[in-house]
Structures are given as structure tokens and as C-alpha cells.
């Protein structure tokens, strides 16, 4: 039973990003390397976050501050990834066989966002995993009727996809000098993370999950608008 549960929640959490990687990234060596590098940047930002969290002991139990810290550093990491990608882009564009696609900038941004999403999903799924391998069921603190694993898996899945969208929106905003698009990403990230505090307060699960998926749909829509727009002169 416990193995079945583990498999189920792992698939819920990872199958979207896994399918995306297998279908869109795995064929191209350049993209895989890009994926690994952006995943590394996310890892770096979470490590710095945890170091700061460890050093500044007053915030250890104040989740709001931990969230602020984590979101800020992740956005810095996103910006750093964007800068590094910008530096490497001319070379990447020339050697890659998809270089003449007009969506190539979005594609690169998408892959680095996917790296962020995968890494965040992997790291945040680990505590769940270590609990889920044991016997028994753990109720979610928010909604005791549902299992902790299930709610976590759905949240992690949502976050991993949100990272993809955020990265595309962010890099489009940077490319077109659109302050709105650049600013919306950290705000949305902060909002999403703060929403998960509803779980902690023990009120309900839907209170966190439903807005999160609404945000996911919203950013999906924004990305779709960005990508379906005609290529502008700016980049």
C-alpha cells in the first residue's frame, strides 16, 4: 500500500515536468545542459536561503520571513540564470538545430524554467518522500480528510509548472524591457508561496490549492499570449 501511494504521488508531482522534459528537451544536448545548469542555479539559491535561515535564527519559526527570503533569492537566481543564458545565447543559437525558430528565445527560457521547476519539485518532494516510505497515512494539516502526500504532490506539481511559466514571462519581460512582466513574476511567486501558508494555519487545503491552480492557469494564459504574439522588433 505504502509503495503504491508513493508511486502515485510521485507520478502526480512529476509526470507533467517529466513528460515535458522527455518530449521537448531530451533530444537536444544543448538543452539538457541548459536544464542542468538552471537546475543548479535553483539549487544554489535554495542553499543560500537555507544558510541564511540557519544563521538568522529568529526567523527559523517565522515561515513568512523564510518565504520572503526564499522567494527573493530564487528571483535573484532566476535573474542570474537569465543573464548567464543571455551571455551564452549567441553561441547556443548558432549551434542548435532549432535556432531559426522564431520562438527560440522562449524555448530557451522555457527550458531554464523547466530546470527551476524540476529542481524545486525534486528538493521539495524529498521530505514527503521520506515520510511516505514509512507505513501508515498522514493527514494533511490543512484538511485532515485528505492525505498529506496527495496535497503536497498537487502543490509541488503546480509549483514546478509555475516556474516554467514564470521564467518565460520573466525573460520575455527582460527582453522587451517590460517592467510589468518583470515585476509580476516575483509578486506572483511571493503570492503563491504565501498562499501555502493557509495549509500551515490548518484552515483548509482548497484555500491554497484552488488559487494556486488559478494562478497557474493565469500564467499559462499570459505565456500563451506572449508566445502567440508576432515577433517584435526589439529582440
Amino acid at each position, binding site marked *: 500500500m505504502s509503495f503504491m501511494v508513493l508511486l502515485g504521488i510521485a507520478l502526480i508531482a512529476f509526470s507533467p515536468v517529466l513528460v515535458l522534459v522527455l518530449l521537448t528537451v531530451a533530444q537536444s544536448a544543448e538543452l539538457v545542459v541548459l536544464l542542468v545548469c538552471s*537546475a*543548479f542555479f535553483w539549487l544554489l539559491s535554495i542553499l543560500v536561503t*537555507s544558510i541564511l535561515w540557519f544563521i538568522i535564527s529568529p526567523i527559523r519559526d517565522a515561515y513568512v520571513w523564510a518565504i520572503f527570503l526564499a522567494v527573493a533569492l530564487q528571483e535573484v537566481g532566476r535573474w542570474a540564470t537569465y543573464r548567464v543564458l543571455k551571455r551564452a545565447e549567441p553561441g547556443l543559437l548558432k549551434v542548435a538545430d532549432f535556432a531559426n525558430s522564431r520562438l527560440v528565445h522562449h524555448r530557451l527560457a522555457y527550458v531554464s524554467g523547466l530546470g527551476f521547476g524540476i529542481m524545486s519539485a525534486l*528538493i*521539495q518532494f524529498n521530505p514527503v518522500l521520506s515520510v511516505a516510505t514509512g507505513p501508515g497515512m498522514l493527514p494533511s494539516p490543512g484538511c485532515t480528510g485528505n492525505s498529506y502526500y496527495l496535497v503536497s504532490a498537487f*502543490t509541488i506539481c503546480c509549483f514546478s509548472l509555475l516556474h516554467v511559466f514564470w521564467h518565460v514571462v520573466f525573460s520575455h519581460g527582460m527582453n522587451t524591457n517590460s517592467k510589468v512582466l518583470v515585476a509580476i513574476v516575483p509578486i506572483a511567486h511571493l503570492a503563491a508561496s504565501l498562499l501555502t501558508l493557509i495549509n500551515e494555519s490548518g484552515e483548509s487545503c482548497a484555500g491554497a490549492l484552488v488559487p494556486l491552480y488559478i494562478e497557474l492557469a493565469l500564467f499559462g494564459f499570459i505565456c500563451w499570449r506572449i508566445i502567440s504574439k508576432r515577433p517584435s522588433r526589439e529582440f
Partner: protein
Amino acid sequence: MSSGGKLARSDSTDSTDSVTADTPLLTPSSPTSAPAPSYSTTTTTTGTPSNPASSSSSDQQRRRTASAALGSSPYSSSSFSSSAAAAPLNAEMASRGNFDTQSVSSVSSTDQLLLSPTQPQRSQQLLEDAQERRRQQSAAATQNSQPGAAAAPQPPRRAVAPQGNANSLNGNERTDAAGSPNAGANAAGDAAEGEEEDEDEELKYGAKEVMALIVPVTLCMAIVVASIQSITYYAQDSGDYLAYIAFKEDSDSGAENFGGAIINALIIVGVILVMTCVLVLLYKYRCYKAIWMWLFLSTVMLLFLFTYIYLELVFDRYNVAMDWVTFAFVIWNFGCVGVVAVHWKAPLLLQQAYLITTSALLALTLIKHLPEWTTWVLLAAIAVYDLFAVLCPRGPLKVLVETAQERNEPIFPALIYSSTMAWIAVAAVDKPVPSEDAEEVPQLQAARNDPEAAPVSTAQPTAPAAARQRRTGTNAGAAADEDEATNATAAAEQSQDSTAPAEDDEGTYSSSSLSHFHACSCSLSCFCTTEHGVKLGLGDFIFYSVLVGKASVSNNWSTILSCFFAILVGLCLTLVLLAIYRRALPALPISIAFGLLFYYVSNEVLVPFNNQLSAVQVFV
């Protein structure tokens, strides 16, 4: 098991001591050195950023040739016109190209230092030869691409965007078509792009090669982690350590343990150093038989004894009952095939599989038979030692490399992981490059190819023509089908060529080609690059796996993943450095430093942080 431990030690010494030989990186007569002449050629003739005029003229000549090849095919012209809209992008790319020129020229200037003084004139002449050949190739390419156009209504992928190189060509044309007001800057940009193409080829190569290394490294780590997670034997500290462990680390005091670990690590590194020196001396005085025997015995032991121990543990863990006859049969066959594959010949995939397996087994043994603290200190010490041995002027690996270069011969084919098949085919060509080059990557390959091919052929006049094999290795993934066809014809042309292997996708090769034309081998831990890619010493596999395996003893997947990604990114960074410095580089220091740092940070702070947030389902 204690005997097993001792054996393990001696064996690990063997394999970790058998050292780098990266024969041809610097010698002009060998194929690996080929980038050097070709780069300096471009620098001396096509110029540096300081004189864009000469560079642009020569580059335009190059481009004209290439665009003649492309322009005659129907699709290329259409792709020119369709892409004219993207001019601003190209202006930007051109300006970026300028930046890249500088880096390329700095690279080539360092390369030039390594060449003999007569090289520039020679390469100048070679360049002229190359251009002459390129013209022939363009003609061939035209003929090649025309039938394809007639046959297929939908242009084949390679014809429209052949390997990104034609793309950059298109980029040049687009810049022209856009009619940039500043013609001089435009020409400079073109020149810069011409230079950049060389680097891009490296980059593309780099990404493919990184993948070709990431996959086996990942596999090796996966074997180790899975074994440690499922078989508790390797994780538990039973106290039977290697013979070199002076301090058992049974003290209560952390400082004392740490001091003991440092001494242990120093002893082990000292043993490795001594063994490496012995190997270098053996090599220096041409005791090849002794070296070969040494490596052969260590392989035999790894493949028979360690496999036996491992399989016994696996059967024990999964409660599989097996009689001794079957067991002996399995071990015998596995070991014999392995010895043949590693030391003689086998399909590439099989050989790679055996190399990965042996590395994983050795890593498991090291994890089992090293005390906790010693492992960590040893990893750091090995990384530092690696730095010293590969880079220091009197470092043993460096001496070995230089000796091998002087003799222009490979050593120790057994204990390296080579990512492609083409490394067997590093001999020369003394005929024009096959037409597939011109069709595929019109000018660049030719520019790289001819200057490099000619010196090699002067060095080894009887060597088999191998440019096509090189091509096969490089572009195996991208252009398999067409290449196969061309290969067939090329092979027919060169049928007198005894060492030219009958290559299929898996690649089978003859032992003579292995022993004679092996380009580059590293066994402790270094990267070296050949025309065909990057080779990674098995020592790197072992110590990466030791790091990840030791991290997995802690049984926390965040830590394992952190170490894994840290090592991969360290590998990528080392490859970037390899592209810059173009010499054998130690592969351990960056990866191990990242890995150790990430292990401790992850274990000490990330895991508690993560657990605390997860417990209340807060996600960041």
C-alpha cells in the same frame, strides 16, 4: 572479507594510478593537435580583432565559396530571403561575434606557442590548399544537394539548416541583405562571425560531449547509489579497512578523528603518488609488458573478484538461491567477456558498460573500506593531488603526458572512458575530404579539416584515411543516415585500408586500430580532448561515485541530488575550461569542491530547512 579489502586496495591503486596519456594534444603531427594548427591558421591569415580588414577579406572569400555551395541549392536562397526580416537580431549577433573573436584569438595565440616555428608558413600554405579543396567540395556539394532537391518537395532538414553552420552563413547573408549603413562594421562583424563559427563548432561539440559524459557518469552514480540504498553491507562501517588506514577513527573526539583522517588520506595519496611514479618510470624505460600486465591483472581482479562479492551480496539481499555451478558459469563469462572488452575489442556499448561497471564496483569497495572521515578528507586530497599531478610542470601525470607526446604513441587504452567510437580513427587523410563535409557544413569543416589533416599525413604517411570516420563520430547523432551512405562509398574507396574498421552504428573496430591509433587516454583523472571528443579517466568516475555514494549513506535524497547536480555542473565547468585551455585538465577539483560544499551545506542546513517547511506544507 579482509583479504578482499586488501586486494581491493591494491587494485584501486592500480587503476587510480594508471595515468594520463594524452598523446596528441600538443604535437602537430598527431590528429588531436589538429585544432592548434587550424586555429593558428585562422589567426595568422584571417587576423585578429586589431586588423579586421584582412580578416574580412579572407573570410569573405571563405563565405563566397560556401555560399556558392549553398546558393546553388534551391532552399538556401529561399531561406536567405525569408530570414532577411531578422536583421536586427543579426546585427546584435555580429556585435557579439566581435566579442567572441577576442576570446578565439586569445585561444589561438596560446596554441601558437605550442607550434613549431615553421608552422605558420606551413599552415598558410595549407590554408591555400584548403581553399582549393573547398572549391572542389563546393562543387561536389552542389551536385550532392541538387538531386535531393528534385526528389523531395519538403526540403530535408540538413539542407535547410545544416548543423547550424549554414544558419550562421545565413546570418551573414542576412546582415548583408539588411544593408547595414556601416559597411566596415558589417565586414568586421562577418569576420567575427567567421571566427566565431570555429568556436561554435567547438561549442556544439561541447554540448554533445557533455551529454556523452553526463550519461555514463549518471549511470555509474546510479549503480552506486542504488547498491548502497538496497544493500546495507556497503553502508555499514564494519571496521575492516584498507591496509593503508593507519587510524581507525574509533576515538570519541572529533578533532582526533579528523587528524587521523588527514593522516590516512595523506598516506593513501602518498601511495598513489608512488605508484604513479612507478608507472611513469616503467613507461619512461619502455617496460610496456609490465604495465600491460599490471593493468591486466587489476582488470581481472575487478571483474572476477569484485563481481563475485557484489553478486553474492545482491543474491543475499534479494534472497536468491543459486548453485555454485551456475554462479561460477556466470562469473566466468562475465569476467572473460569483460577482460576481452576492456583490453582487446568489443562493441563500444559493451566496452563502456564494462568500464562503468568496474568503476562502480571499485567505488562501492572504497566506500565500504574507508572510514567515514577519511573518505571526505581523501576526496579533497585527491582533488588537490589531481590538480598537482596534471598541471604542475613536474607532476607525474604531466611527465607521462609529455613522454607520450614525445613518442607520439598512446598508452593504457584499458582504463579510460571514451565517449565516442571515432577515437580509434585518428589517423590521417592524404586525399581530399569526402564530399559529405562540403554538403553538411560547407566551409568550416574544410577549414578545420585540411590544415589539420596534412601535417598528420606527413607524420604518418602510411596511416589510413580517417577523416570520414572522424566525421562519423562527430555527427553520428545528427546525420546518421546520410553519413552511412557516404561512408559506404568512402569505405569502398578505401577498401585497401586494412585498419579502417567496418563501422556501423555501434562501431566495431579492430584491435590494431585500438593499439596504434588511440589518440588520448587518461586514467586517473583528467579530461583530454581529441578531435572526437572528451575522454574522462575512470578515476573520475570512481571518485564522483564515491562522493555521491557516501552522500547516499546519509539516506537523504536532497543531499544526494545536491551532490549529483554539483558534480555535473562541475563537469560542465571543467569542459568549458577545457574548451578555453585546450589541454589535459584535471576533472576532479571543481566537481569535488562543489560536491563537498554542497554535501555539507545540504546535510547541515538544507535538510532541516526543507523538513521544517514541508512538515507544515509550506512551499517556496
